[in-house]
């Protein structure tokens, strides 16, 4: 077990480095990349930061300050070295330390992701289980039509409709009034409920379909027949069924949550939540490499480690799986 964890952690770190390298390649080496001077004199990103009609001296000062003239591999390794010590560099734009900015923007993202995920987990599993148990009834048909609609509607559309409806029309929601949970929990709640629902809807639809499918599949298993044959009450039989049907949900939940902790880009932008996702979008628009790198590393971290946690968890839930 310990050995397994060490091996997986090392592998995770390797993956993080590879992701960082990939971003460097995209930023510096690809033709037309922001950090690639190409046939021109200066890398586009330096010209951009220098502002309108900059003098060559300004541009060169910027290049010098950001170290853009150093060889790419040198920049890469110094970045890795600093990152290992928790220093993700400084924003090109605001010169704020990226580590600090990311930490500041993490709580809104975590709040959004956790809240939404609890919501979709509850809704998705409940609907899925009931639909499977009441298969072919009106409830089942209606839920599955609803779920189909849910998976078909893109988040950005649901989000914009929600803002339009609750903010502009009903005026019971105030978009963009985010405050941290710690400074005013009630207002935080009054801001978060709508993005939670918007973000949760699609997932709830997917989860309810998956849970229903799992329940029906497991319901046809021989060991469920055994459970009935030995005289268990229908309740206990359903418990046996749930045990198998919900185990894969744990995996999916972990992976989905990990993905969202790296920033719910669309939802955060629509509702003006100052999380990792909206930070990333701004950074990309500004060709702000340290921020792009910082958010990418953080997002990759969550994805890679949620994978690890899910695998460890799965081996606990499924006795047939061993660490190897």
């Amino acid at each position, binding site marked *: 077990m310990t050995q397994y964890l060490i091996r997986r952690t090392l592998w995770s770190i390797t993956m993080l480095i590879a992701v960082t390298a990939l971003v460097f390649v995209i930023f510096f080496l690809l033709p037309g990349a922001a950090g690639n001077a190409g046939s021109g004199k200066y890398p586009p990103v330096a010209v951009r930061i220098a502002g309108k009609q900059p003098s060559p001296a300004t541009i060169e000062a910027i290049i010098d300050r950001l170290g853009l003239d150093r060889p790419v591999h040198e920049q890469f390794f110094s970045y890795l070295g600093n990152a290992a010590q928790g220093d993700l560099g400084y924003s090109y734009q605001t010169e704020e330390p990226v580590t600090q900015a990311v930490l500041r923007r993490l709580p809104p993202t975590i709040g959004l992701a956790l809240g939404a995920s609890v919501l979709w987990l509850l809704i998705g599993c409940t609907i899925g289980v009931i639909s499977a148990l009441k298969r072919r009834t009106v409830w089942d048909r209606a839920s599955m039509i609803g779920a189909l609609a849910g998976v078909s509607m893109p988040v950005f559309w649901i989000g914009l409709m929600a803002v339009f409806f609750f903010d502009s029309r009903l005026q019971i929601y105030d978009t963009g009034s985010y405050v941290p949970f710690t400074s005013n929990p009630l207002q935080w709640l009054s801001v978060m409920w709508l993005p939670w629902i918007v973000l949760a809807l699609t997932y709830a639809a997917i989860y309810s379909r998956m849970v229903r499918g799992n329940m029906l599949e497991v319901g046809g*298993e*021989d*060991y469920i*027949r*055994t*459970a*009935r*044959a*030995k*005289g*268990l*009450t*229908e309740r*206990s039989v359903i418990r*046996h069924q749930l*045990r*198998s049907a919900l*185990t894969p949900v744990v995996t999916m939940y972990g992976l989905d949550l990990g993905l969202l902790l790296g920033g719910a880009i669309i939802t955060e932008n629509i509702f003006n939540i100052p999380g990792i996702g909206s930070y990333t979008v701004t950074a990309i628009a500004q060709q702000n490499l340290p921020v792009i790198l910082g958010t990418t590393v953080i997002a990759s971290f969550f994805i890679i480690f949620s994978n690890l946690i899910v695998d460890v968890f799965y081996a606990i*839930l*499924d*006795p*047939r799986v061993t660490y190897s």
Partner: protein
Amino acid sequence: MGEPILEVKDLKVHFPTPDGVVKAVDGLTFTVHRGETFGIVGESGSGKSVTCLTALGLIKRESAQISGEVLFEGHDLLKLSNEDLRPIRGKGLSMIFQDPFACLHPFYRVGDQIIEAIQCHDSCDKNEAKNRTIGLLDAVGIPQPDDRIRDYPHQFSGGMRQRAMIAMALAHNPSLLIADEPTTALDVTVQAQILELIDHIKQEFNIGVILITHDLGVVADVAQSVMVMYAGRAVEYGSRDEVFSGPLHPYTWGLLESIPNIDRKGGRLVPIEGAPPSLIRVPTGCAFNPRCPHRFDPCDKDRPELLDRGGGHPEACHLRIEDKKRLWNEREAGRVEVAS
């Protein structure tokens, strides 16, 4: 043979499907007595499993049209609700299944699954249930049962799992054990052990056993009565000796000739030609007629009923009894000739 414990009367189980009605069981009557092993034999798809699952109420009633009677301990099981069947399942009437690899819940410990079976009918504490489980596992020949109860099913071999299933089925001293192809998924050597175990249990507890198999050879060793099924109906029904020494139905002949290494006369192994019919479109007349080498005029028109035509036990074949005896003798002689 003791008193009757299970009486099935004119059982019909029809599944309406989009392609037509599947007549999985179509008028089946038989009786199982205490202390006997009742063999049900037939190729796969002949309705053997459906028959037994229906008795236990394990066929979804809304998916099937079920008629007839299944009398057990004074009840007609077909008339009982799911709730009323529950106290009978696993208590008076237990069942073990074909595929021991799929029959135990992979996420629960084997011991816990048996403990659960004990506790769902007896209100005893966990510790007592655990001790009884160890005793049961020991009785079915699982070594070190006090350690093995903590194992998960995947840590058991196929034979061990079937033993565990048998232990579970015996938890409440049932009066009838239904074993649906209990050895089909197992290695040959293990098969013999499991059959021996079932036979031993039958004698020790004086219970009735229904042994379902597609292999007449399996039944030959342990059964006292045999019912041969084809396309949802019985085609021959008698004591083991009657069926094995004087088989009267060409389908039974075919099954007998396809038993490998039969230690009676001859050694030729002849599979029955063709395949069992679709149960949606069962041939008119005798369902076996398209595959029967001895079919004659009425076979594809009149359905032969299951009755004693003078051969000593019921069968469903239009041939005259003298012809049957002659044909079977000829077939046996042919087999010996080829073998020698």
